[in-house]
């Protein structure tokens, strides 16, 4: 059943798919986005929405930094529902050992154009009175911010729709190739460019992609305005995120625009089992309470889980499949897809329309993941 032809088709209406539609609709006449559920209802509905520049690897730094700049260019246009808050990040040192690395980190950020400030023990206490007294200090990145991912995805798609993007909701794609997409109801759409942006499910549509779900838990509280001011992350977070160990928790606490406190985070490889693991939740909260003892008194209203789409080289897969350039991938964003969605969409649109990309696309090319490590 042939239903339509488009210049580009995006499969998946998470924040990455919506960002792809946003930029593709700038360069193409007609774009179609396919999403079986609510827009942003996948990992995007589970993510913390911390828009953060990360220095884990040069490629990751480049992508997060570029993407954050793109976000900042849009903030003034975005709706209130996107809950944008320019909180900054405060990386908190637990001990002198961790604190001794802070200056080096600051220098790296500054050298690469990201403002960073070292805070001593007293400055940290002043910046976040609810942190445990006596912490040695931390690193503040004032430019980092927080958004609400679902409505941000919705807003991006809304702009794309204004430029003519068509959204087909309700049915999943079952067969995706460079030239066409078939949905579960048998309808078939053809296109010069197809982007697989199905997040953790991308590998089900494009065999050979190595993407594994990595489960995370989050807890949200009732409203306690100004209990916390910055997105707070322990300096040990990178280690916890980077290690492929089977299970880890880290102190990661975020002020929501609503006044709620969002508490993360955990990482586990357990397949697609979304059940709440009480042991992990307990560990996560205990970890948060080590840094912020008073957090234990706040009222928790909901716990949920989500899945990060993890790749072997810890970088998202962005670009054309080597064997079929019309088949593009935009998936595998692990714990940074909210941040990197815009740079991903831009990269996809640039590559698809033959524009030289703003950042080096090679580390993200499909296939790169297999050759890495």
């Amino acid at each position: 059943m042939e239903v339509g032809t488009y210049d580009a088709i995006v499969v998946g209406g998470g924040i990455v798919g919506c960002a792809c539609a946003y930029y593709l609709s700038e360069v193409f006449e007609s774009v179609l986005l396919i999403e079986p559920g609510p827009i942003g209802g996948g990992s995007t509905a589970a993510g913390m929405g911390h828009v953060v520049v990360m220095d884990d690897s040069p490629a990751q730094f480049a992508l997060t930094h570029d993407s954050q700049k793109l976000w900042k260019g849009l903030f003034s246009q975005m709706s209130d529902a996107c809950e944008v808050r320019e909180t900054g990040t405060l990386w908190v040192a637990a001990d002198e050992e961790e604190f001794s690395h802070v200056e080096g980190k600051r220098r790296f950020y500054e050298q690469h154009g990201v403002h960073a400030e070292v805070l001593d023990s007293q400055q940290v206490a002043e910046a976040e009175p609810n942190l445990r007294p006596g912490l040695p200090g931390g690193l503040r990145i004032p430019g980092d911010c927080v958004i609400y991912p679902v409505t941000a995805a919705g807003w991006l798609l809304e702009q794309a729709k204004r430029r003519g993007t068509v959204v087909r909701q309700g049915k999943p794609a079952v067969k995706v190739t460079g030239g066409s997409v078939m949905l579960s109801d048998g309808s078939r759409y053809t296109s010069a460019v197809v982007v697989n942006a199905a997040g953790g499910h991308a590998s089900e549509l494009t065999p050979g992609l190595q993407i594994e779900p990595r489960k995370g838990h989050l807890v949200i509280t009732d409203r306690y305005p100004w209990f916390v001011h910055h997105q707070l992350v322990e300096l040990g977070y990178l280690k916890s995120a980077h290690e492929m160990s089977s299970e880890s928790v880290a102190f990661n606490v975020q002020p929501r625009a609503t006044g709620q406190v969002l508490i993360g985070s955990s990482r586990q490889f357990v397949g697609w089992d979304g059940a709440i693991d009480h042991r992990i939740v307990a560990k996560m909260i205990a970890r948060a309470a080590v840094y912020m003892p008073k957090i234990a008194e706040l009222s928790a209203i909901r716990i949920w889980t989500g899945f990060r789409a993890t790749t072997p080289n810890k970088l998202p897969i962005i670009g054309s499949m080597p064997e079929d350039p019309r088949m593009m991938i935009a998936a595998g964003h692990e714990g940074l897809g909210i941040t990197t969605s815009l740079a991903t969409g831009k990269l996809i649109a640039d590559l698809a329309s033959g524009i030289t990309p703003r950042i080096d696309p090679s580390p993200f090319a499909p296939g790169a993941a297999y050759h890495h490590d």
Partner: protein
Amino acid sequence: MTELIHILINGHAVTVKPGTSIAAAVLNAGTTAFRKSVSHVPRGPVCGMGVCFECRVKIDGIEHQRSCMVLCSEGMVIETDV
């Protein structure tokens, strides 16, 4: 069982019978705005049985407590509209 209970509601001393819920005590004291909603309008109890969360007040310094589910006890300090 007949001894009266003394509590403070928004700084005012109030005496209630044993078995009185905080929600009832607050209403009897003439206060109808238990909390300010997200868009800053006053709200009071609806379900009377712990489901709706409209009756939340601060009890002994702890915010977001359902006043319909807690009985008054001696010396309690209750703040509404926080």
